[in-house]
């Protein structure tokens, strides 16, 4: 079938090549962020200490609790995303406020991680003296790269539909791994201290 009248001709959906290009750009930015953080963490001289956050017994306790808050919010992220995609068992129709919840819990979660990450990078750097520490260092770099990619993909309508859940899942996986290799380890060795 051919369309001759420009008015009735279906609007061509801009997908395909430009969507792939957008995804590539987003991924490239994410990789740049990850590698940049890793290189900074490896090359600069770790100071061993940094500005402490008031109200906690130690900088490490503060980090463990902030990371735990971020992880809790990340679970909110996962559930609200499943609801939005109609994948949460028992919830047929997503309530109107779920999008707002997803956006704001996500913003708070990532902002809460920033002081933790700055302390890691500035005071400790990218370290590899035990498997847990190496995994944590790699995941930390990966997480912010995946986050940057997700922020670009979520704002780009041309990106293929599968991209957002995949990148979002990577961000969630990254944060979960970070929490397991830091806060859980800390509470396991030091107990629940504030």
């Amino acid at each position, binding site marked *: 079938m051919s369309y001759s009248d420009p008015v009735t001709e279906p609007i061509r959906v801009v997908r395909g090549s430009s969507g792939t290009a957008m995804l590539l750009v987003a991924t490239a930015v994410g990789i740049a962020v990850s590698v940049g953080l890793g290189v900074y963490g490896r090359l600069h001289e770790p100071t*061993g*200490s*940094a500005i402490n956050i008031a109200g*906690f017994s*130690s900088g490490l306790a503060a980090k463990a609790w902030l990371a735990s808050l971020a992880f809790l919010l990340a679970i909110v992220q996962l559930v609200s995303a499943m609801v939005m995609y109609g994948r949460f068992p028992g919830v047929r129709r997503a309530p109107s406020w779920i999008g707002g919840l997803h956006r704001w819990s996500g913003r708070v979660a990532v902002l809460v991680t920033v002081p933790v990450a700055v302390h890691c990078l500035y005071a400790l750097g990218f*370290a590899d*003296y*035990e498997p847990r520490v190496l995994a944590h260092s790699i995941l930390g770099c990966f997480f912010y790269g995946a*986050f940057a990619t997700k*922020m670009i993909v979520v704002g780009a309508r041309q990106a293929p539909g599968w991209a957002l859940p995949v990148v979002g899942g990577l961000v969630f996986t990254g944060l979960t791994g970070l929490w397991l290799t830091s806060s859980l380890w800390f509470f396991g060795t030091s107990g629940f201290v504030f």
Partner: protein
Amino acid sequence: MKRYAPLLTLLAVAVLGLGLLAVNVAGEPDGSAAPAAAAAAAPAETTAPAPPAPAPTTEPAAPPAPEPPAVAEKAYAGRSSGDEVTVAVAVKDGRAVGYVCDGEEIEAWLEGTVEGDTIALRSGDGEVGVAGNLDEDAAFGDVTVNGQSWPFSAKAVQEPGGLYEGRGDVRGVATRIGWIVEGDGRVTGLARSAGSAAPQPAPPLDPNAPDRVVVDGAPITVTTIDGGDVVVGR
């Protein structure tokens, strides 16, 4: 607006991160800047080849009634000729205590003796050793690390120069830190945590305020080490 919301979030994260980093850098005590500046200012001393390292007078073949030590009490700090390691030795009443450290991966506490002008020290596992001679002004000799040997020279230092040991519980893990403060103010140190194979970077030490070292919120007790202290566990 809505389309750019994620990018604004990204920007907010970047701004917050850089802001915190700037606060950290601004609030950093002079400790880390000063040694760097001092290191740049005094390269001549390090490159100077260790003066005729008197061959470590052949081992204590048969110690005939220990000679009285040539120096009663003093601390020395210096480096190996190729700048491989920093060496510090403190002597007191015939006893010698040392610390060998490269600030990156080599780190060992040593103990030994002073007989006449001859010093001989070794670490608990025997992998690191220092042997040489000393007088009121300097100590010269050879430092051996895992089978490799380098000549070293160390000048006599006054406080705040010398050896420092820090101990504390970091994240519930017993941690021991060693620092060498050279006469020109350069600080070389490493930290070792119980159960961790590799040493970690030592926090900056301000030799004029050694009681203010904190690692991850845990206060570190810093003591000046002299030749009479016990530093090697038995």
